[in-house]
């Protein structure tokens, strides 16, 4: 059986990579994808704990996270499209006003 | 040629799409430049000339009889209509009366041409909208009609069968019998195709309300033929300015008020049935008599008299080597080709070659309505609209 610590390490590594990407990337879509990466890292931790504790609740949390991620992706991408329409750019540095 | 559309500032996300000249459903080498917003056409420009062969210039260097072969190649789907238009124009110039039998056979053959041409239209129009089988059914039927043309003229497509003052040859024996068979089966074959399309919900959705042209617009844009009648304007040269004895035939001019693709589709289908009616009448009432006018200086003598009569031989020599001299003047003769009003404008300076011969090609004028039809609609509608005005690029570019 895979030790929980290994699962958590993988989870942490993915999360940190997500954070790093969030910081260094300039493209809005890529930044958004890095957020998804972080979400997945957390999901992995949930699944690991669910296995460790022999409880299904962790898996259910993952289920909810996936569903919320879907909603988030829909809204987020809609915002990105609206941003692109108004700014003709996807670079985060050029999108600095709160206005769409 | 080589038209481009500039992007409107502030609308950079719009896409400029060059549709054609190599595209499966632009019916030849039509090129459309479309400005697209998503899949919606915002602006469009058409680009023609990829098949430009300079017929109008060539006419000026050919004797009148030689010109007939050129007219075949303009609207290559209805060569006999073109032949007829040109011959009628020259006959008008010469003030030449054509014997009734020749007139009847001309009517018969041009109506068959109309059916054949409409069959090609129906097939390609259907395949544009995705119905593949109709295409092959239509070509099967058309092939039967082309065999008839081959019997009378020796050619399937580039027939050049009509001559100034009559016909080239007597139709062969057994021709009428074969024609009778085809005429018997054709209506049921058209029904078959209609079964596949007319009441088909997908077909109706794809064609109804698409590419609407009002009657006023149709007239203003010089639309003609089935496209004009699909907008509710009842104008048919055969009916309103009868030529070649059309006034002696009973037929209706089908019109539809809607002006959409579906209306044009129904009009053409109804026209095919009317054409069959005319063909039947022409078959049954085919008069006896000569097939060429009695005008020895214009019409070639037949082989028999050439062997017995010196005058015939001399006329033959003169017509072949020099041609004939029509009076100075100019005529404009229109006929109802399958695509609409086909006009020949011939200016004569008295020499054996036309000084100027202009062809009023129906597709050339009809194509202008395309922009009005497709702007604000989807790409798929563009294809349906091109099919519905039934353009032939050979005729547009001439």
């Amino acid at each position: 059986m895979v030790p929980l610590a290994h699962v958590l390490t993988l989870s942490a590594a993915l999360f940190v990579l997500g954070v790093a990407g969030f910081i260094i990337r300039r493209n809005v879509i890529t930044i958004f994808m890095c957020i998804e990466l972080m979400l997945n890292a957390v999901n992995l931790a949930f699944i690991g704990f669910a296995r460790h504790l022999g409880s299904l609740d962790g898996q259910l949390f993952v289920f909810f996270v996936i569903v919320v991620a879907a909603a988030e992706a829909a809204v987020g991408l809609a915002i990105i499209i609206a941003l692109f329409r108004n700014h003709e750019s996807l670079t985060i540095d050029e999108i600095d006003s709160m206005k769409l | 040629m080589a038209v481009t559309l500039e992007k409107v500032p502030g609308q950079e996300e719009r896409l400029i799409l060059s549709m054609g000249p190599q595209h499966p459903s632009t019916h030849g080498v039509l090129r459309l430049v479309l400005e697209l917003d998503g899949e919606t056409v915002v602006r469009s420009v058409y680009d023609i000339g990829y098949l430009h062969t300079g017929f109008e210039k060539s006419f000026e260097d050919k004797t009148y009889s030689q010109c007939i072969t050129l007219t075949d190649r303009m609207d290559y789907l209805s060569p006999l209509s073109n032949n007829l238009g040109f011959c009628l124009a020259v006959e008008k110039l010469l003030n030449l009366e054509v014997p009734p039998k020749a007139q009847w056979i001309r009517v018969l053959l041009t109506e068959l041409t109309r059916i054949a041409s409409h069959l090609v239209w129906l097939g390609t129009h259907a395949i544009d909208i995705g119905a593949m089988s109709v295409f092959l059914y239509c070509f099967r039927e058309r092939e039967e009609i082309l065999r008839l043309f081959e019997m009378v003229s020796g050619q399937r497509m580039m027939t050049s069968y009509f001559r100034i003052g009559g016909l080239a040859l007597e139709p062969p024996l057994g021709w009428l019998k074969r024609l009778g068979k085809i005429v018997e089966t054709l209506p049921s074959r058209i029904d078959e195709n209609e079964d596949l399309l007319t009441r088909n919900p997908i077909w109706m959705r794809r064609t109804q309300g698409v590419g609407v042209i009002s009657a006023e617009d149709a007239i203003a844009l010089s639309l003609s033929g089935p496209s004009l009648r699909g907008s509710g304007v009842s104008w048919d040269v055969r009916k309103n300015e009868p030529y070649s004895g059309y006034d002696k035939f009973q037929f209706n001019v089908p019109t539809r008020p809607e002006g959409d693709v579906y209306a044009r589709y129904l009009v053409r289908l109804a026209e095919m049935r009317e054409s069959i009616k005319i063909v039947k009448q022409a078959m049954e009432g085919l008069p006896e008599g000569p097939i060429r006018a009695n005008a020895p200086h214009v019409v070639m003598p037949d082989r028999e008299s050439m062997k017995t009569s010196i005058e015939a031989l001399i006329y033959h020599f003169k017509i072949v080597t020099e041609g004939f001299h029509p009076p100075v003047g100019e005529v404009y003769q229109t006929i109802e080709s399958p695509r609409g009003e086909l006009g020949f404008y011939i200016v004569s300076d008295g020499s054996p070659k036309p000084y100027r011969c202009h062809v009023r090609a129906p597709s050339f004028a009809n194509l202008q309505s395309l922009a009005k039809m497709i702007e604000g609609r989807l790409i798929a509608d563009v294809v349906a609209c091109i099919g519905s005005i039934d353009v032939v690029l050979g005729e547009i570019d001439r």
Partner: protein
Amino acid sequence: MDTSSDTAFFLGVTVVKVVVILWVLLTATAYLTWLERKVVAHIQSRWGPYRVGPHGLLQPLADGLKFLFKEDIVPADADRVIYWLAPFIAFTLAFLAIAVIPFGGSFSFHGHVIPFQITDLDVGLLFVLAVTSLGVYSIALAGWSSNSKYPLFGGLRSSAQMISYELSLGLALIGVLMITGTLSLRGIVEYQQQHGMWNIFKQPVGFLVYFTAAIAETNRVPFDLPEGETELVGGYHTEYSSFKFAMFFIAEYANMVTVSCVATLLFFGGWLGPLFGPPWLRTWLPVFWFCFKVFCFLFFYIWLRGTLPRFRYDQLMAFGWKVLLPVALLNILVTGAVVAASS
């Protein structure tokens, strides 16, 4: 028998099964193209392929050779990596889905009971759905990476179309799942065996919705807009040539097979059918029934192609969202009520 030799035997059998099934599937898809050309030709009152072999039976081979030896053209500005990747994704996914499809009962071999299936997953149906849901990438990426306008349109159209119809596709199956109470494809067939009735009689609406959505998912007439050769030239594979094109081609037909298999299993009793004759026949008849049913579906596909025109993009979307989805939801509602009332 010790476990290690057991495992080795299991592995060996699985490898053999994988090879056999892959071979059968590849041949089947190749001959599906032949069948399509033949059937459509007869619908259109012509002969179809007739030159290579008797009745053109070797035509698929000739086609395959042609695809292999044709020049492979890559557009100048294409994104080469993805341009290469897209047909491979299509091909792999199309063949992956077949892994969980059972196409018969089981037979015994040297005392081992071997099922006619590569692997039986508890959630086999989910596996099929998961694999087919990834299929959209191949088309979208092919359209994007060609860096050409018609493929881009084809890719965009198909992405939107597949997302829209996948919903109805999945929801249509839920009715069956509610009745049978299992996600295992083998379990669903066994349920139908126990109750002596195919699911089609209990879920006619579900079947119709599923099959309509499946035709859309596999980009076939009348939903073949991503290809739509008379509008978009060739859609997403306009710029593809040679073997990469062949991979898309094979993938499309393999997807048709998969979809037909799932329809057979879920609604038409899978391999169930009259059994008779000696034992060996009783073992192989189910396989025959299964193949026969799948063949019927494939024939229906081809029949549609010979008959119907194509939808327009907006009509397709409207149909998916405004007709198919509500019907699927309603089907679930009614099925749920019936299941709840009867339990």
